[in-house]
């Protein structure tokens, strides 16, 4: 405990660095995964290829990927870009499947209606399919966020600074307080990411909330001898 109160400044600095190293790949990964998942979902033959390809990337252990990044990117081993690109690769590996599932969860009659209204492929994606896929994509994003926060701490072994430094230093110098500060910091950060993504997903899907608010009304309607199934 005394270690923590004496190092609040360091802990804050490392937490911010950790958040940045985990968040940037999450955003980049989502931006890359949407077109990839969309292209894969449009052709049945591409789906297994895209999933197998990204799955292979996910098999590479994190420490190995961090170390191999400078070879591919031509960067220095201490460059945080290595970690950002490696984490983006993991995020894409997790999210392509999610995007394919999410777009697949859009009811076909909704897509057909949008098509009948004259919407092109791109507008259907942006205004109809993606909004409806938000709950599924958000669920995948939450898994990726929690996994990213945990994996980023490994980057301390190659000398890229973030909360993992507290883990390594706490272990090396036998300071349990420092080690625990690192573990709890990672957990709190993972929780914050999780809550943030849930909050964003809620904001993006107001119709789901409207549904739950009017569920009492819907129950009442369901009792009435009318066919309300189409509206549901």
């Amino acid at each position, binding site marked *: 405990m005394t270690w923590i109160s004496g190092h609040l400044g360091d802990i804050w600095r490392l937490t911010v660095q950790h958040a940045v190293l985990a968040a940037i790949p999450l955003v980049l990964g989502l931006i890359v995964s949407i077109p990839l998942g969309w292209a894969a979902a449009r052709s049945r033959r591409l789906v297994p290829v895209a999933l197998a390809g990204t799955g*292979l990337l*996910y*098999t*590479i*252990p*994190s*420490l*190995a*990927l961090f*170390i*191999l990044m400078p*070879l591919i990117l031509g960067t220095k*081993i201490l460059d945080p870009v290595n970690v950002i690109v490696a984490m983006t690769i993991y995020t894409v590996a997790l999210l392509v499947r999610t995007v394919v599932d999410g777009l697949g969860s859009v009811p076909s009659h909704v897509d057909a209606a949008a098509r009948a209204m004259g919407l092109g492929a791109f507008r259907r994606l942006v205004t109809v399919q993606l909004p409806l896929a938000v709950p599924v994509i958000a669920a995948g994003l939450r898994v990726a966020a*929690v*996994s990213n*926060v*945990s994996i980023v*701490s*490994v980057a*301390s*072994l*190659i*000398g890229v600074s973030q*909360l*993992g430094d507290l*883990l*390594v230093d*706490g*272990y090396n110098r*036998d300071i*349990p307080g420092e*080690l*625990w500060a*690192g*573990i709890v910091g*990672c*957990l709190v950060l*993972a*929780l914050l990411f999780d809550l943030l993504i849930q909050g964003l997903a809620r904001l993006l899907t107001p119709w789901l909330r409207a549904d739950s608010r009017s569920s009492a009304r819907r129950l009442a309607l369901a009792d009435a001898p009318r066919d309300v199934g189409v509206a549901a």
Partner: protein
Amino acid sequence: MIPKIWDWLTDPANWSGADGIATRVQEHLTYSLIVLGIASLIALPLGLWIGHTGRGRPLVSAANAARAVPTLGLLFALALWLGPRLSGDLAFTAPSIIVLVLLALPPLLAGAYAGVEAVDPATRDAARGMGLSDGQVLRQVELPIALPLLLSGVRAATLQVIATATIAAYVGLGGLGRFLIDGLAIGDYAATAGGALLVAVLALLVDLLLAGVVRLLVSPGLTGKQSRRRRVELSAAGLSPIADAT
């Protein structure tokens, strides 16, 4: 840089001996097998039981939530706490093995549970209606149907263990992680990157092997991939294959 790594990988001196590549690969695989064996013995029966009875579901959620704990932190915390209490080689290997088992549990548990949970209740009822006992329903109906998800849990756990065993070299475990950790410590990038390549290839090969095992073990009735002969037999008997009927 790449020629240096190539030289390191192809130098016969690096392959032999107690700290050579061959020994390290063998260590890495042995640890992974031991860990997966222990974790499977705990998690697979438990997951099947939770899926079969529907009891203890919070355990699966709790195991999933526990994945947020950073693996590096868990490893160091256990090594710091348990290390001084053990003597000899055990002080280095035991904490790592325990952490690796803990990390392998959630995916195994989730896979086994989700597999049984996903069995169509009508199928289960039909099996009961045919007079199968509770244990027979689990072994002859639920387990084969749960197998694809169960095995995907095994694949995920295996990757997790191979990756974390690499990091566990930092707290003294053998295996390929030694090249990465020791190489980083002395600034020998050729050995570090060579070791990283070997780990990546090992993980890839093991995953491909498991993918092959999945294809062999999963019942053709589930994948719809029946052999040609079987299809011919069925159509000759005036029966359309199940896969076509659905």
